[in-house]
């Protein structure tokens, strides 16, 4: 009996070691050593000089940090005419050109660097979008005695409506960013902000909402709504944003909601697609149930995004 016990323990230990050793590190080569690509990024705005960022992509398992590539040359074409060859600028630490970006103008770049094939990209700089008349409607929930709370409580209904206008004929994409402007952000962990949350969604069909649920216990970020150009039936698109936020306090001395600050981004087609996919990618990080996201690039033979953006910002004062 005594001789069997050590054997039994040995078998049990071996079994436990065996079961616990299920995870195995696979060899690096198994991912596939994808050759590095040129990565070119540009965010052009009307009236500003073109400022490119160029780097090279790395294998996902490469532990090196990504650094700017300094030996590239970027040929910039305006209306198919070469207007400038841009090289690395050591002061701006980027590829800063002298050409000023204009709207209604087709641009093309050719980027070359030692060890890489030529990358090309075509884009334009969008015209500034506009917002038409806007409205804010807040209906508060009643308390037990049928009245409304003075400085706290949930909204039975909350809605912002405005007209998104774009007179250009370009295929743009739009991002509407909504941020709540508080005098002092409720911090959670007890006190007034503990049960509060804000929530926004866009009622327009086909609009993708991101970050549509914020607890006050976390740092508040902007709500973003992505709208592709094909939703426009003409030059105007009525937008309706709806909230069912539940603020514990919004007009007391400590936490006061001053306004809803809205920024409309109008982005050139390829740049918009890139931003949209990137947002999906960020949104799905760490979520086991999310499908993988392929991030669009309008850089042929390379990665990144080249495009233009135009902004319009306006504020809607908070009133009830």
């Amino acid at each position: 009996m005594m001789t069997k016990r050590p054997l039994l323990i040995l078998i049990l230990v071996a079994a436990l070691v065996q079961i616990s050793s299920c995870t195995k590190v696979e060899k690096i080569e198994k991912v596939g050593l994808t050759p590095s690509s040129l990565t070119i990024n540009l965010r052009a705005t009307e009236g500003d000089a073109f400022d490119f960022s160029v780097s090279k992509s790395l294998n996902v398992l490469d532990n090196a940090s990504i650094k700017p590539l300094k030996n590239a040359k970027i040929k910039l074409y305006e209306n198919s005419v070469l207007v400038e060859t841009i090289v690395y600028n050591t002061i701006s630490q980027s590829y800063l050109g002298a050409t000023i970006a204009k709207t209604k103008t087709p641009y093309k770049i050719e980027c070359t660097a030692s060890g890489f094939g030529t990358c090309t990209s075509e884009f334009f700089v969008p015209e500034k979008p506009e917002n038409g008349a806007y409205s804010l409607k807040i209906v508060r929930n009643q308390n037990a005695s049928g009245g409304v709370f003075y400085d706290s409580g949930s909204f039975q209904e909350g809605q912002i409506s405005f007209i998104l206008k774009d007179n250009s004929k370009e295929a743009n994409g739009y991002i509407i960013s909504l941020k709540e402007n508080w005098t002092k952000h409720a911090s959670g962990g007890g006190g007034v902000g503990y049960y509060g949350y804000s929530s926004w969604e866009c009622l327009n069909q086909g609009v993708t909402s991101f970050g549509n649920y914020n607890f006050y216990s976390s740092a508040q970020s902007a709500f973003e709504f992505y709208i592709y150009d094909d939703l426009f039936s003409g030059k105007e698109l009525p937008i309706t944003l709806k909230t069912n936020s539940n603020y514990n306090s919004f007009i007391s001395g400590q936490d006061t909601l001053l306004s809803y600050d809205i920024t409309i981004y109008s982005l050139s087609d390829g740049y918009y697609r890139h931003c949209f996919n990137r947002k999906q990618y960020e949104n799905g990080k760490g979520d086991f149930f999310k499908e993988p996201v392929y991030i669009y690039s309008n850089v042929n033979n390379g990665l990144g995004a080249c495009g233009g953006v135009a902004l319009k910002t306006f504020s809607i004062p908070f009133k009830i």
Partner: protein
Amino acid sequence: MKKLFAVSLTALFTFFLQSQSNIQIYGFVGDSVSGEKIISCAVLEAGSDSRAITNTNGNYTVHVPPGNVVLVFSAVGYEKKAYSFYASKDTQINMALLYVTTMKNIKIVAEKAEDIAQTTQMGAISIPVETIKKIPALLGETDVLKVLQLLPGVKPGMEGTSGFYVRGGTPDQNLILLDGTPLYNVSHLYGFFSVFNTDALNHVELIKGGFPARYGGRLSSVLEINMKDGNMKRFKVNANLGFISSNATIEGPIIKDKLSFVISARRSYIDLFYQPLYRAISFNQYAKQGYFFYDFNGKINYKPSKNDQISFSSYTGQDKFYNNIGPYRYLYDGVIYENLQKDELSWGNRLAALRWNHRINSRWFSTMLFNYTRYKYQVFKQVKESEEGDTGIVTTGSSQDFRSMVRDLGFKYEFDYSPNNKNAVKTGINVIYHRFSPGATAYSVQNPLSPKSIDSSYGSSMVRAVETGLFAENDMVINDRLKINYGLHYSQFFLKDKFYHSLQPRLSARYLIGKDWAIKASLVKMQQYIHLLTNSTIGLPTDLWVPSVKQLAPETSYQGSIGIAKTLVKKYLFSVETYYKHLQGVLDYKNGSSFLNTYEQWFQKVESGKGRSYGLEVFLQKKVGKTTGWVSYTLSKTDRQFAGINNGERFPFKYDSRHNISVVFTYDIDSKYSIAGTWIFATGNAFTLPNVRYQSIDQNGNMVEVESYQKRNQFRGADYHRMDVSLTRHYVKKYYTLNVNLGFYNLYSRKNPFYYNIGTDTYGNKVLYRVALFPVLPFFSFNFILK
């Protein structure tokens, strides 16, 4: 369309109206000990071409000329029996056959397998239930679906799971019928075990191609599983004690040879052992964490007359994970507090079927079926705190309840008509009333500080639909060499705002070369109106069953196959088949979408595309003798294409696998010992992994590093191979039999990939991890049969 259907039906019936002046011999073939029906039993007239096969009810009709007749009854595993008589008029002959392993000495009498070259059916494989029981399985739990995964053209999903992928199709494209009623989810424990209790089963058959017209509603396969009817002669108890679960089956006569029953129940007991351990290690006597599953099968079978059989069968099963704390109460400063925390995940099926088999006359046989099936999936979270003081009870808390459900109510009426020896006709209709609840979340918040409690729900609304099917098929002998099975299946799908329909021609043919080599070919069109949305990253039962709707059309497939078949030396079934399958309307989630996001309707999260699959399958099977088993090899390629996924380019299907080999054997050493083993090999699955890092710009000009997927499923995992072995000791006594089964799963402890992920090692360096699930696992089980 209707005209074409009418013309086709007329053509279909033209042939068999020319009936010959033969005598019809018909009847029922059953087991001599239990009275259980024998499906696919060959009934031959000696010295002629007259032959028939028993249907799923064990009935046959064979046509013979007047005079002295010798009928030979032959079924796999049963002693062959000849019956001679003088035929002068239509006669009913019921036959009982003796199962060979019921004899004390395992002396194999029925050495001859069925003749594979005789049938027109392609891509159909039946596995004897007794063989399924012998094949070693994960943790000793015998499993029908795991055995099917070893067949050519059938691929398992991830390690250990029981979902199966037939010729590049998805699990929702498999029509799984339990006693003629579809089951939606057939897995326990995230797919590691199937819901079928093998002791309650009579017959298992899988059809991968060349579908006869009687089947419809799915694209890739039909798995027909028939439960036992229950022993008509005497009571029998069969019990299994296993590693994970135990089960018991009781069957017997209520009125001998008239009314029988079979009841089978199974429950896992991981939670019973784990819970005390969990409480001890968590130092919390109120903590409850565990998992269990259970199944219950029941059937009552009644034979009111020689020509009638009525049966009622039911199944209910559930899986449940739970991680709960409380409720627990405590007193603090004069106030009683009660806290409760619940996290539960459950899913399960319910099924009921009422069947009436009726022989109308010597040529006509009918089957009427009413059925109900339901699959429900639920995620429930709750946090609740209450204070009981002088002012009363104040409760705060919140709950979140996600539910997805599909419920069907069905009716089926089918006829078998045997006009002569040259034709065997089947025709019928079926109607299914579907109710889909694809996924909705109910939120509830109770907060005394808030002016009003929140009680709202998000998600997809219920969709109701009616699916109908009408079919006719004929298995026709053209001449000594050529035999065809042709038919039409017409299906309709009615939604509130949309109507879909489809006419699906089916054709299979067999041509004999020489005496016993057969060339077989088939062409079929299939259509299905329901879809399963499956997360592509993991195979949890987070799957949502959804219907075709206005925004998403049904799935359609066209499959052509050609092959050869032969029964070698009377014992081995040999076949080689090639196939090409084109799929339309297959669904996949869009980039970045998640099933958990109930703010969007489900059809906004998916995209419709196409796919194709083609391959070669080689199969050598031995069903009878002391050694049984098979060797199979599959060479195949499967891909998918969606406009909005992978830049619109084709990409490999997740379970695309170039080479698949399986070797399965069972060997009865003597009356006391038997051994069994399997070895499988499969080219690694395709995974989507990021492969580059680069800098990306947002709308504000900020640079952020991202990891990018260049292509969908571009990464090929390591090859999968595994060997399982088992040894069974049989103790055969006068009143009982005890079988003790010992074995090893993954004998040489191959670390097969379950999934891959990129993480960091202890030095902070990025590395790719391959996570394997099961090393070598010993198992044992006890099987007890009370005779």
